[in-house]
């Protein structure tokens, strides 16, 4: 299992590669352009907000990558915003998407809340599709690993403009 650090781009690239027909079938009712705003968390090496985006068409994963804020605001049907620790809890299934959404731990920056909530029944499967890799989080890293991650992540963001 590939080890990826959240939210490095390799995580999304690897998850996209591993997204197979079983996920397509389970998520066949999901279509749309979804953006997940990861709020700045300097202690995690995330100095400014990051936008993780995916485009789904009847369960098919058309695209998944990080966007600029301008792209996300312009393109996405929904922008759901939360702190990086909240997203960690969702991805590790220590919190549930629908519960976090209703308790406003996840806030809707853009889109119809009723339609966004319709994602709820499928959230567990979407999380499964994003956690087929060994996903580790910045707060789990040793100081040395964290230093390397922070530098690499900053370099990626600079290069990609996200």
């Amino acid at each position, binding site marked *: 299992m590939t080890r990826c650090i959240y939210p490095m781009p390799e995580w999304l690239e690897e998850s996209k590669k591993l997204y197979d027909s079983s996920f397509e079938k389970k998520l066949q009712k999901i279509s749309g352009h979804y953006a997940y705003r990861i709020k700045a968390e300097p202690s995690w090496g995330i100095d400014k907000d990051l936008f993780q985006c995916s485009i789904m068409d009847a369960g098919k994963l058309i695209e998944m990558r990080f966007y600029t804020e301008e792209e996300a605001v312009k393109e996405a049907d929904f922008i759901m915003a939360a702190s990086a620790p909240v997203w960690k809890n969702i991805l590790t299934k220590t919190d*549930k998407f629908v519960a976090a959404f209703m308790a406003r731990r996840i806030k809707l920056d853009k889109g119809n809340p009723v339609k966004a909530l319709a994602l709820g029944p499928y959230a567990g499967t979407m999380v499964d599709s994003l956690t087929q890799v060994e996903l580790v989080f910045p707060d789990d890293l040793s100081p040395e690993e964290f230093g390397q991650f922070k530098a690499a992540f900053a370099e990626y963001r600079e290069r990609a403009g996200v």
Partner: protein
Amino acid sequence: MKIKGAVLREANRPLTIETLELEPPGQGEVLVKYVHTAFCHSDLHFLLGEMGELVPYPFVVGHETAGVVEEVGPRVTRVEKGDHVTATWMIPCGRCPQCQRGRGTICTGNLWTLSAGQLPSGATRMTDKDGGLVFYQTFVSGFATHMVIPEEGAIVLPKELPLDQACFMGCCVPTGWGSITKKAQIQPGDSVAVFGMGGVGLNTVRAAALSHANPVIAVDIEGSKEAIAREFGATQFINSSEEDPVERIRLETGGLPVEGLGFLGGGVDVVVEAIGDPGAHIQAYWCLAAGGKLVVPGIIPAGQEAPMQLTFMPLQEHSILGTLYGSISTDIDIPRYAHMAMTQDLKLDKLCTKHFKLEEINDVAEAMKRREIIGRWVCDLD
């Protein structure tokens, strides 16, 4: 593993009996072989889309069930293989404000996963032949041969209690008993009227009778339900298709008819509306004595309204109290009811009036629409 289940793919369509793939139980979950599941009026609400699309489609219907634990997942501590259990359709999270107040049946922590058709953990465990997700009806999905449920939703019952009676512990017994003992908190000698002689209504009557309420007046639109209502302890029966229950109850409880005003005095201390019909809600309210409580376990279909004239609500200190699942504590009260079923005469053997096969479930739904079901009809899943 492959299981068979009754799947609702959209409202107002027949259920389809499908072979589904069920994942093994995860952490804190158990695999239960369902043996008997009763058809409740709430199931019909789901079939007709009257629950406001509470659960996403497709889902396996049913919520009043009993079975045997076949396998336990990791870290399961409360349930063992071979235990007889009923499955509860609300599972308190234990952490939300309502659970902290001891009101677990209106838990807001797990409500959202319930309405997402998931288990409280957020997991889904079923897929159809095309690999599409199939969701849970309220953590239970009783009309299936097997199901994975959380251990917190599996309440262990005495093995001596027949499973075709144990299934009633999942809904109609706790809802009926809780309406009387938890929500209405009746005292011996209180007068009670119960509207609707379905499974919940009959258990409400039984609870009132065994709590020494007097009179216990049963009201139903079908005269054919009089015998079973009296069997469960009703002292009077009113066929509301033939006479006005408000007038009859007011007169029989000492009310004086006054021209232009209706009645002075009379009425019962507690009315339980166990149908979920707007007209019955209004009639039930007008049967209340001063200080009376209208307890409402019956669910009015989404979009329907009950216009009520509430001038007397403060003047006579009337209360209208909604109750979900009888406002019980599932962990504490369901084993108590099961114990009572063993040691007192809850008449659960009289409640089951017909057994049916899973393949006949659409016929049963039609029979319920036609109000032909007396007592509870129970599906044999063996």
